[in-house]
């Protein structure tokens, strides 16, 4: 293959990613805007809210950190809770290794920075469907899939911060965050094991709600993860 055809195939992979990623703008835009509004409501400055969106780019964990900060949890607990929400991305990272492990380090670092739900889910399904893709094509597709969402995530955070200054208490902003979390989690409850994990999470979380901020949450999350994994193992052995 000559350099020019390699370039062309990577370019078309990039455009394919861009096309596939475009519809997700509809999900990301309101999400980022709500983050901006709520961050302002919680007392963060414009620069701090933008700092979150640019440096972290992970919706659910940004909301989780904000929630812990509103409760004045200790910094260690803020970080633990928010990063725990992102642990699923270690799974994403692991599953990309067979497809992108051979790419240069800087490309793998780019993919890591952009490895949030939408580009990941789009890319992994494309890679599985087209095993003949070359590594440069895979990288180009991934970056393409992230292209529409990423700048919009930053821009809409900014819009949310600016709009947030003129929003009154009547809008019940305190409850937008719980709705966001429930909306993120409910579609993920797709098996008995997930339902059991969620049930343990809720019950232990409520039982330990009186403990210092974050403590109960971490115990509940640990218990729920273990429950989910054990129920899954039990279901699998029973099915055999």
């Amino acid at each position, binding site marked *: 293959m000559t350099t020019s055809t390699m370039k062309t195939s990577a370019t078309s992979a990039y455009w394919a990613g861009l096309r596939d990623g475009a519809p997700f703008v*509809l*999900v990301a835009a*309101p999400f980022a805007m709500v983050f901006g509004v709520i961050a302002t409501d*919680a*007392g*963060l400055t414009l620069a*701090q809210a933008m*700092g*979150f969106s640019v*440096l*972290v*780019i*992970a919706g659910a*964990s940004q909301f*989780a950190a904000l*929630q812990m*900060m*509103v409760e*004045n949890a200790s*910094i260690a607990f803020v970080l633990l*809770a*928010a990063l725990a*929400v*992102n*642990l*699923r*991305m*270690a*799974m994403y990272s*692991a599953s990309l*290794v067979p497809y992108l492990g051979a790419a240069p*380090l800087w490309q*793998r*670092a780019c993919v*890591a*920075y952009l490895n949030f739900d939408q580009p990941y889910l789009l890319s992994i399904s494309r890679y599985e469907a087209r095993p003949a893709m070359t590594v440069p094509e895979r990288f180009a597709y991934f970056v393409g899939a992230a292209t529409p969402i990423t700048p919009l995530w930053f821009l809409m955070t900014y819009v949310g911060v600016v709009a947030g200054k003129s929003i009154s208490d009547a809008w*019940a902003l*305190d*409850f*937008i965050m*719980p*709705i966001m*979390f*429930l*909306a*993120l*989690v*409910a*579609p993920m*409850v797709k098996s008995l094991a997930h339902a059991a994990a969620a049930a343990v*999470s809720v019950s232990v*979380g*409520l039982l330990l709600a009186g403990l210092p901020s974050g403590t109960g*949450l971490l115990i*509940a*999350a640990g218990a*729920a*993860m273990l429950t*989910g*994994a054990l129920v899954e193992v039990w279901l699998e052995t029973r099915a055999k």
Partner: protein
Amino acid sequence: MNYSTAEIWMIIALMGVGTFLIRFSFLGLIGDRPMPQFVLRLLRFTPVAVLPAMVAPLVLWPVATDGQFDPVRMLAAIATIAAGLWTRNVLWAIFAGAVTLYAGIGITAVL
């Protein structure tokens, strides 16, 4: 919120670094060496394990009502979960929750 500006920036910076390292982990550092099966299993449940415990107290004892149970917020939570389970779509779930919340607030204000 009782954090100093420096503390807030420290949280943001550490979260940025931590999140990047989580995403980079296998792809960048660990390579394709195998992970214990059970660890992978545990990791799969993290969102479902963390978020419900965080939300449950906020639904039962909302901050805005000083911890008093609020039927409107409860209904909004139920609508969000129901729509999320039914449609498997985050946006529809948010839409259902927000519509229920604001309809409920509107109706209570009129009554």
